[in-house]
């Protein structure tokens, strides 16, 4: 059994007088111990909403999230159930996620599972700050005295305090300079592997995800359209959207070909297309795609896709073959 199990999660945003926007339209994923799962997709695809839904910051319209088999309850006014403390989150902007008026050790100590007195809490907080690469000497400083990368380290130390079994990191390295990004990404990978902690790494930056994730889930307009082990995904894609996403990444290789932009624009999530949500932009769409919505099915042992071209249970069809097949039919 996986550590974190997300089943058929749906999240609607309701505005009075308007149609509800279905930001997440049925998403399932799993994160195992020590496993790093990258959740990627364009802005507006619902990946952050899903992340917030998983930790309980956003109420689910339907579906379930379980950690170690125990259902995670939404964050409310009361103290969280003990079991839910195993799930922690790191946010994109360390400038707004830390309280500017409190010393950093106190903010880290907030999350400690057991708290007896200030002295022991301070010692435990310092231990955590050291675990994320900061020195004990900075414990009494305030957030404004740190750079963006250092602040993100403090936010990570705070997330580690309750000894979580899974951390959800939402664009945790996106706001940082290239070099700092590398430091924080390395830190998260190290912590996940050392502590056997699951990491759900939400990012729009596929290059970083390719580097650190064991498994990738690709989201488009509220749906997970493909999941695969990272190296296999870069080898070949099963869903046309994933392929479009990967081909848009600029490369550092000499004489790299220009990145290719997919056709059209991302549709309004309040009025998603019928059938497969990608079909208006899909180069290999068939008649069926505009009427029937494919669900995410296992194609082989390790890969899943939501595409009518890919039969459940395999064998997987290569996208190049699809293009020629569609050309022949029309």
């Amino acid at each position, binding site marked *: 059994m996986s550590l974190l199990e997300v089943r058929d999660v749906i999240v609607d945003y309701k505005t009075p007088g308007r149609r509800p926007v279905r930001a997440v339209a049925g998403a399932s994923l799993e994160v195992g111990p020590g496993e790093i799962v990258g959740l990627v997709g364009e802005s507006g695809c619902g990946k952050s909403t899903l992340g917030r839904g998983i930790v309980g910051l956003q109420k689910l319209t339907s579906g379930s999230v379980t950690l170690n088999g125990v259902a995670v309850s939404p964050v409310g006014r009361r103290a969280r159930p003990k079991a839910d403390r195993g799930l922690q989150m790191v946010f994109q902007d360390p400038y707004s996620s830390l309280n500017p008026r409190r010393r950093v050790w106190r903010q880290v100590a907030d999350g400690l599972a057991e708290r007896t007195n200030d002295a022991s809490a301070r010692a435990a907080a310092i231990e955590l700050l050291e675990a994320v690469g900061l020195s004990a000497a900075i414990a009494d400083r305030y957030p404004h005295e740190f750079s963006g990368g250092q602040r993100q380290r403090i936010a990570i130390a705070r997330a580690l305090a309750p000894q979580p079994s899974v951390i959800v990191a939402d664009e945790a390295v996106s706001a940082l300079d*290239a*070099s700092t990004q590398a430091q924080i990404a390395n830190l998260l990978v190290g912590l996940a592997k050392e502590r056997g902690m699951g990491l759900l790494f939400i990012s729009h930056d596929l290059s970083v995800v390719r*580097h650190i994730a064991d498994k990738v889930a690709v989201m488009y307009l509220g749906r997970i359209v493909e999941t695969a082990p990272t190296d296999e995904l870069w080898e070949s894609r099963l869903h046309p959207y994933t392929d479009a996403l990967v081909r848009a*990444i600029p*490369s550092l290789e000499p004489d790299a070909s220009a990145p290719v932009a997919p056709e059209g624009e991302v549709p309004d999530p309040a009025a998603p297309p019928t059938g497969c949500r990608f079909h208006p932009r899909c180069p290999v769409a068939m008649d069926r795609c505009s009427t029937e919505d494919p669900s995410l099915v296992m194609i082989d042992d390790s890969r899943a896709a939501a595409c009518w071209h890919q039969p459940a249970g395999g064998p997987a069809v290569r996208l190049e073959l699809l293009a020629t097949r569609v050309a022949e039919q029309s």
Partner: protein
Amino acid sequence: MSLLEVDNLSILIRGGRNLVEDVSITVNAGEIVGIAGESGSGKTVTAMTSLGFLPAGATSAGEVRVNGVDVLSMTPKQLQSIRGTEVAMVFQDPMTSLHPMLNIGTQLTEHLRVHKGLGRKAAWARAAELLELVRIPDPESALSAFPHRFSGGMRQRIAIAMALACDPKLLIADEITTALDVTVQAGILDLLDRLRRETGMAVVFITHDLAVMNVIADRLYVMYGGRLAESGSISQVLNSTRHPYTRALIDALPEGAALGKALVPIPGEPSTPDRRPAGCAFNPRCTFAVESCRTDVPQLRELEEGHFAACAVDPFGSLPEGAVPLDLSLAARKDSHVAS
């Protein structure tokens, strides 16, 4: 004569600190020239001078010539005549360059009416053409819509259309794709490439993302601590890198590092104008630094035709007699990691 010639430009701010020191850059018509560097390296300040903008209270030395005329000694009236028509600029965040409470048409036609003296109707028609040029679907109805109606990528394309309104010869693009998704970024890069081919417009493309540079720029200037570290054609700088800073920047990128290995961050903190070390600004973070790097500022030297680097050590270039040069190309490095 080149379209833009920045000649030994230095920019001093109060307190005797240098934002930019002794920077020279040339841009020819139809060329896409990249300026890369971390935040605080001086890349934006340098590019802004081509529009005659200096930071408040700053003084400058050197010349910045657009079409042979020094913009730094122009009167405000002369400057107004080149802004928008000779040189135009697009910024990172399209929401700050578009007025949220005016419709797109009003904002686009303003330039056309002021600079080109077009009438209301003619300006509106030209504005629709501009939106079509940047591939905004249904340009006529887009003109009467407000900025919030558009996605980030469309807003950025509208901001580009606005910059293109008076057919500038040079476009300064400051981190214009940094905040966008890769799919949208690919569309913008394609648009810029098409524009320079079709109109001969030159582009100064500013970003810290070297992978984007690799696919868009013809030539690249790498800045560190307010000075040029390295410059040359895109393949010279990225594939036969000579400056340790450029090398470190490439290695820190997920695209540059070998798969299955940890990313390699640059040690230490970036140099900022109020924290410039003596000698070579990069020396505290440089693995190749020798004693003289801490005292002497290295000068740009031409290492091969068109390829310049400012490094006294030149660790990837100078080899003892008979030594075999290290193959530092991306492909070779990836293979060697796999083997080890």
